[in-house]
């Protein structure tokens, strides 16, 4: 598609009959947002977006006058599925397994999520706990549901060496736009630890200097996992690991809020877990003074 002189990307798309949601046409409402997967959108067209969105090539077509060709996709386009090989399926706790898979040319940031396609009609989203610079595999932490179709498939049928497909990555819950000296606080429950583990390792690898605190909540001590690794890492790399279990009165959200509220205004937050937990933390931390741009989150919605 060739733009007429002075035309914005949005105007060109609409002229060509491409259905593109839009409203303000002034770079304010962000409802026309697209993503460039080839070529760099002009800085001006990324006004008001988060650093994570900018890093992924998101831009606002209503204020975009490109100076070079752009290849654009819808913001939630995960691309074509590609083949991956299972390298390991092993238990992390009573009901969480670690899945490691290998694939070619899958570029991602730790903390993003992907779509795992076990067979046609059976796919789920899982966060990435691995780091591309350190791991030759993609790692996911998967909670097993007794009647879950994906859980049954993973436990009963799939073995190391088997093939499946993945698509993505997606999500903006990764270490970007955090100042190296800023306090960094990661709060998660259950398998919400997976993306946080990825972000934590990425932050350490990139030389984060500010204090780091990782809160991990679970119903009881059996729900915690990776505790030895995290304790060892906390010891070696100087961050604070704060596990909390409900059966001992440790509501992770309440504990984290009480401790974090006084310094919320200067802290970068990553929140991962169930929808209620994430919503509550996001709202309360914002009300305590955290800037919305400094709160990155990923809420899980359960699937069968």
């Amino acid at each position, binding site marked *: 598609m060739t733009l007429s002189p002075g035309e914005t990307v949005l105007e060109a798309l609409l002229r060509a009959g491409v259905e593109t949601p839009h*409203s*303000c*046409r*002034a770079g*304010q*409402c*962000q409802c026309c947002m697209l993503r460039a997967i080839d070529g760099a959108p002009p800085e001006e067209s990324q*006004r*008001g977006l988060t650093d994570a969105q900018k890093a992924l090539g998101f831009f606002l077509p209503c204020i975009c006058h490109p100076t070079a060709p752009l290849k654009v996709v819808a913001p939630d386009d995960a691309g074509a599925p590609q083949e991956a090989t299972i390298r390991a399926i092993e238990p992390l706790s009573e009901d969480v397994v670690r899945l490691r898979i290998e694939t070619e040319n899958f570029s991602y940031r730790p903390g993003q999520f992907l779509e795992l396609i076990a067979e046609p009609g059976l796919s789920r989203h899982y966060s990435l706990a691995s780091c591309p610079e350190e791991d030759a595999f993609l790692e996911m932490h998967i909670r097993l549901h007794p009647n879950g179709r994906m859980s049954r498939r993973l436990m009963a049928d799939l073995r190391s060496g088997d093939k499946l497909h993945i698509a993505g990555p997606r999500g903006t819950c990764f270490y970007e736009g955090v100042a190296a000296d800023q306090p960094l606080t990661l709060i998660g429950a259950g398998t919400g630890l997976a993306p946080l583990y990825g972000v934590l390792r990425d932050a350490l690898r990139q030389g984060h200097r500010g204090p780091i605190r990782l809160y991990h909540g679970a119903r009881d001590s059996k729900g915690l996992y990776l505790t030895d690794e995290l304790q060892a890492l906390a010891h070696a790399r100087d961050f604070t690991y704060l596990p909390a279990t409900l059966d001992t009165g440790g509501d992770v959200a309440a504990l984290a809020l009480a401790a974090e509220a006084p310094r919320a205004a200067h802290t970068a937050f990553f929140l991962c877990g169930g929808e209620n937990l994430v919503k509550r933390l*996001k*709202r309360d931390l*914002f*009300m305590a003074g955290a*800037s*919305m741009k400094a709160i990155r989150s990923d809420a899980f919605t359960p699937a069968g």
Partner: protein
Amino acid sequence: MSSLYERLGGEKAVNAAVELFYRKVLADGRIARFFDGVDMEDQIAKQKSFLTMAFGGPNSYTGLDMRNAHKRLVAKGLNDSHVDAVIENLDSTLRTLGVPEKEVREVATLANSVRDDVLGR
């Protein structure tokens, strides 16, 4: 003469105002319930576009958008007293940010001009 939006400080002023304004609105017992279950990031983008309009900045405001956006809330009982509360919070946000009285009143007048659209009248 420069526009109100420019006199207030343009996009920078909107950015400074939006989080403070939204924090005040969410803490206001008279209107907080209308934001229950609303995605905050989404809402902040909308507040930004509302403030840009209230400041008389670049936007293509149509009454129809405002009507549609608030239809669900009118059904939940949104009325003049709630619009008053929102404008009150907007005033206090601008005062906190040191905006002169004359401009505060101008913003309130602009915000008031969309009252009928918001309430679907």
